[in-house]
């Protein structure tokens, strides 16, 4: 983060060279282009609806940004979504929990799942990649085993408010996402906790010698990751009115794509929540805009892949200029 020091040397203002700014400019251009190509794209209705659809990924992307900033990764998030969705339905239907208790229980399961990841990663020093690949299989297996591949349906009407309802004309879950995004952004930018994340990612050994509680902070971010996955599961179940054990399959890649596209370095030490928010919106709106313009599903994936590669190229060339 030595941007400010360079500013006098060049005519371009420092904020223009930030990855987020570049990305935001690209986003605006893409939106304008897609909006011109299809009059149904830039409508309030469509944009709010896209917000509804991207909330689950967005919720998980917030703690994932933290995790990746510390130089870690959490591949088990999709499996945790599946496990929490099943625990929600199962505890409600089979244990006879009242639904509010089942919701809290499912969140707790998510928290514990993330805590287990963090515990093994910090105490036994298993690399996060290995640990979360293992728990990806483990949690998905648990979801399968507990549910016996049966779906749970027939939730009460009030539960659908979260996933299908509106508040002041805005999808309920989008408001939840916005609030949490603000909290996460402030936590990262303005608190000791946030500074500690960057310190760990930049140089973990130095962070330890600076008497930062590296292990405790890591434990917290992995637990947050599990909690957010649990929350995403509840939103998802509410949106699609049913619980299935295959829910959240493949989410880890969508989440990591949004975070990395948003400029968070996969090696840790840099990144922002605001970048993640732009990355998230960019992927969702590109997919939607292309679909509305008549591009088929398989071609859309190709475009997303190209966008990711370009973003990485831009990021690394910026990095070189800074160095």
């Amino acid at each position: 983060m030595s941007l400010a020091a360079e500013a006098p040397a060049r005519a371009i203002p420092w904020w223009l060279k930030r990855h987020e700014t570049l990305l935001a400019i690209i986003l605006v251009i893409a939106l304008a282009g897609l909006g011109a190509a299809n009059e149904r794209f830039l409508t309030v209705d469509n944009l709010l609806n896209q917000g509804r659809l991207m909330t689950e990924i967005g919720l998980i992307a917030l703690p994932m940004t933290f995790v990746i900033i510390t130089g870690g990764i959490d591949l088990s998030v999709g499996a945790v979504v599946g496990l929490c969705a099943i625990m929600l339905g199962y505890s409600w239907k089979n244990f006879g929990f009242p639904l509010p208790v089942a919701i809290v229980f499912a969140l707790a399961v998510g928290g514990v799942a993330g805590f287990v990841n963090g515990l093994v990663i910090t105490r036994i020093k298993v690399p996060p990649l290995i640990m979360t690949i293992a728990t990806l299989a483990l949690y998905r297996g648990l979801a399968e085993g507990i549910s016996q591949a049966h779906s749970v349906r027939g939730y009460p009407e009030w539960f659908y408010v979260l996933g299908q309802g509106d508040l002041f004309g805005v999808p309920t879950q989008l408001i939840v996402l916005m609030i949490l995004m603000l909290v996460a952004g402030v936590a990262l930018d303005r608190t000791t906790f946030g500074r500690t994340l960057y310190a760990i990612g930049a140089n973990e050994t130095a962070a330890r010698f600076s008497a930062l509680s590296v292990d405790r902070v890591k434990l917290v971010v992995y637990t947050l990751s599990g909690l957010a996955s649990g929350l995403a599961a509840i939103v998802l179940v509410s949106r699609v009115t049913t619980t299935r054990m295959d829910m959240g399959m493949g989410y880890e890649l969508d989440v990591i794509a949004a975070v990395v596209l948003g400029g968070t370095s996969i090696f840790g030490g840099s990144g922002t929540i605001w970048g993640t928010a732009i990355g998230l919106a960019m992927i969702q709106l590109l997919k939607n805009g292309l679909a509305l313009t008549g591009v088929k599903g398989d071609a859309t994936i190709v475009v997303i892949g190209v966008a990711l590669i370009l973003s990485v190229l831009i990021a690394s060339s910026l990095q070189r200029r800074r160095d």
Partner: protein
Amino acid sequence: MNARLLTSTAATLVALAFAASGANAAGKWDGADDLPTSPLACDASGAAAPEAAKPYDGGQPTNPPDKAGKEITLVDVPKLIGIGYFNATSKGMQDAAKELGNVKVTTDGPTEAKIDEQIKFIDNYITRGVDGILFAANDPVAIAPVLKKALSKGIHVVGYDANSTPDAREWFVNQAQFNGIGKAMMDSMAKEIGEDGSFAIVTSTFTTPNQARWIAEMQAYAAKCHPKMNWLETVEAQEDNNLSFNQATTLINKYGDKLKGLFGMTSVATPASAEAVTKAGLCGKVAVVGLATPNAMKPYVNAGCVKSVVLWNPVDLGYAATYVMRAVVDGKLKPGATSVEAGKLGKLNVVNGSEILLGPPFIYNKSNVDQFDF
């Protein structure tokens, strides 16, 4: 080999089997469920037994634009794209669109059978604006809200292959009813092993809903139309390839010459049974009839070891779905109708309130199996 010992063993077995079949005549076959059955007529016409008329239970779009006779744009969102089965339904839709001339249909959907991806696709097409949506649901309940949204925007919705809750779509094209499968299975077996042959069944588990329903319908139809055929045993093999092979081999060894036919109730059990018969060198002596996909059965069908594979024709399924949609838009298929014209397939009947039956199942054999790729 001691011939006398063999004969006496066989005699004992036959006696035992008779005793067993006597006991079974009253009871149900293993693996059948207890729900009421409705066997079809014995003749080849496959005329459906008159159904108790169920009132229309589908949903209706809100103020759809009147496009009767005009060009319409449809989108088909199957469970997933890029697999042979849905390529075949998609081909049927294109065939129908070409014949009709005033229908444009595109197939688009997720590359994995994931319900939330499928919902996003449908949602996008609602925003983009189409006249009708054809779908094969990854989950009957989860897909309902987005389909209801389509209906509320005046878009026509017709399902095929995999249904949603009835009120979330107008019609569903049902590829095969349980009694239709039951009839096709028993008729094929009777043709191959004769009216007094003995057979065994390899199923997934005794309580798997679809399989249990099919077995119950097979039993009811056999009692009505092939009363002399002799059921020996039903064995469970999960949906496990290896276990299915072992169970089929065990049946062959256990019943010897008495066993004339094997039913495979799953797309895993049928090829595994065919493999077991092939490995035992009993091709042509033990018939295999079952539900399976053509690709899995091609080697056995082409080798002459299996003569009939029962399933439906996915090309016809997609074709029928498109004709049904056209009829709905043209106002020719309204709630309460009892049949609909579907081009080369002729008149298709309405069943279960708001479902359209594709017709009797399709039998894949040596003459046609190579035309299908799924």
